[in-house]
């Protein structure tokens, strides 16, 4: 058995379903998913208020709620609306997008290792961003004032280009999940090397900016970064949910999916476009916040049960994780380490655990 064979979780609850039926509409909802999602949303609301309330100038949660509902102290209102709210929104949207994107990738590839950060989508964004940051001051065409828009745009282009490359290299009369993961890991390594090489060429003055971008941070993020990510999520999130029935059939393998009436190429293309879009806009807004897209869907799967990472719960838990990680960096540390460092500290052990489990199973 290779590393790429997904390990089997020890216990996974059988989902109890609630059937909903009217004349036109019918469906089944796993009870557990509803409970987990509701709890997650409640915690997310608390985390949101906590995140907005904490900082150099602490604001109590009731005051935060007062401002958000349109009242409150005008001094608080400025701090909240102009400084902390957009940052919290970026955190939540980026987390939600990454969580959902990871769930889509993992279902598509039928492999828990598949996620935009491990498959090079994030790496593509990093190449784009670092390219502009580094070349922006060392001359070249881009020398005339690289605005933050330049970096953002370059990151977006980089992410989409990496996704296109991934698709091209992994395509061989269709897309196979394992090949997608192998090609993706290879591409991520190449893009990573490219970033390192550019960093060695960077001037000492640009290095800090590049490094901060690379570690993924919400510092200084405002409405300017929040809006594109918010729009992307508002459009792609519902599209992802429309794909649930397709994903359910696709999970059974290409042949079974097609004999169940799935137009495979179209279905695979749609899932990839939505997954890549969510990841690309998230990375563009906040830099590579590692491991969120990778870990969150698997946590959601274990909480909810079933056979594939749940999309909505993954989004909620992703938002919760990024928001909490960001607030923790601001409250606990005096110098605000980038949020990506915290998620990496949480995520790396999980990756090791996943690999160890697989190896142990293989040798057992």
């Amino acid at each position, binding site marked *: 058995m290779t590393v790429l064979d997904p390990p089997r979780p020890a216990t996974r609850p059988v989902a109890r379903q609630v059937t909903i039926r009217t004349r036109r509409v*019918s469906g089944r909802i796993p009870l557990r998913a509803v409970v987990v999602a509701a709890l997650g949303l409640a915690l997310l609301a608390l985390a949101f208020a906590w995140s907005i309330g904490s900082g150099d100038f602490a604001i109590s949660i009731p005051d935060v709620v007062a401002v958000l509902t349109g009242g409150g102290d005008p001094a608080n209102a400025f701090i909240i609306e102009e400084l902390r709210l957009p940052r919290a929104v970026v955190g939540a949207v980026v987390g939600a997008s990454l969580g959902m994107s990871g769930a889509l990738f993992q279902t598509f590839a039928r492999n828990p290792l598949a996620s935009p950060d491990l498959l090079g989508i994030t790496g593509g964004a990093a190449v784009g961003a670092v390219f502009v940051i580094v070349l922006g001051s060392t001359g070249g065409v881009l020398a005339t004032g690289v605005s933050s828009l330049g970096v953002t745009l370059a990151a977006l282009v980089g992410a989409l280009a990496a996704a296109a490359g991934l698709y091209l290299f992994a395509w061989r009369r269709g897309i196979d999940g394992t090949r997608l993961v192998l090609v993706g890991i290879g591409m991520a390594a190449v893009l990573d090397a490219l970033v390192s090489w550019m960093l060695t060429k960077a001037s000492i003055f640009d290095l800090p900016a590049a490094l901060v971008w690379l570690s993924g941070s919400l510092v200084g993020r405002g409405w300017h970064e929040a809006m594109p990510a918010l729009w992307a999520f508002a459009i792609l999130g519902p599209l992802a949910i429309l794909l649930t029935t397709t994903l359910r059939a696709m999970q*059974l393998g290409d*042949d079974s999916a097609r*004999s*169940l009436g*799935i137009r495979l190429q179209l279905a695979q293309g749609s899932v990839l476009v939505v997954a890549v879009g969510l990841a690309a806009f998230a990375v563009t807004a906040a830099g590579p916040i590692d491991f969120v897209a990778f870990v969150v869907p698997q946590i959601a799967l274990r909480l909810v049960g079933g056979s594939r990472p749940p999309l909505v719960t993954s989004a909620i838990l992703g938002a919760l994780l990024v928001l909490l990680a960001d607030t923790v960096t601001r409250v606990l540390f005096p110098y605000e380490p980038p949020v990506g460092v915290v998620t990496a500290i949480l995520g790396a052990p999980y990756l090791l655990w996943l690999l160890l489990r697989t190896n142990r199973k293989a040798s057992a």
Partner: protein
Amino acid sequence: MTHDILDPVSVATAVPPARLRAVGLSVGYGDQPVVKDLDLDLVDHAITTVIGPNGCGKSTLLRSLGRLLRPAAGQVLLDGKRIDKLPTKQVATELALLPQSPIAPEGLVVRDLVARGRHPQQSWLRQWSADDERVVDETLAWTSMTELADRPIDQLSGGQRQRAWIAMALAQQTDLVLLDEPTTYLDLSHQIDVLDLARTLNRDHGRTVVMVLHDLNLAARYSDCMVAMRDGEIVASGEPAAVITPALLREVFSLDAQVIEDPVTGKPMVVPIGCVR
């Protein structure tokens, strides 16, 4: 006055053409044709089994009949229409195909797998109608899977797992059911189990079953019609007794064998000679 029924021309036109047919079908991977200019009418409401040595193109034929492969030349006709021109979802309501050794995602329970067979009848808004529920319950009962309905597929034995997959294909409620080597990796008693299920489907539910099998004796026993292939071409087809002959076994499988009567069913039974004597 002559009896119309004896007139060979009117007899020929009175029989409706088979629902699923291959006409001049060639299929290949790249330039290499695996199935060559093949004509086949699959008898409705019968069990047809395709046999042949490894690599003779029998799975390729089945997958083409099930619209998983695109013909390089010729065509597959479903009710007289080219199957590759029909909408995927419409085909899925007429024809179900169980691929060779399918793998279920871990954690998926039997009932949910069977429920996925309802996908062709469902839409995003109608995901679980009363009909869906009734069909899934019935299918679980037919296939004796009701007691295992809440068990994850990955915890079942090979035979149970195959029953679960067949149940999924049945939940599609199609008249045509294609099974690609449904007995592979099963021990003999489970092979019999799966083939009994195929027979029940055909005899009690009137489904047309097309299978690829390796075991000639089981194929002869369970089939109404057999198709023997070699090198992408049909060498013989018809009733088991007409197909399973020492001459054909030598021609198709390069096998020296005696054919005797199966003591249980009276169908032909292959006894290979080999070099044991």
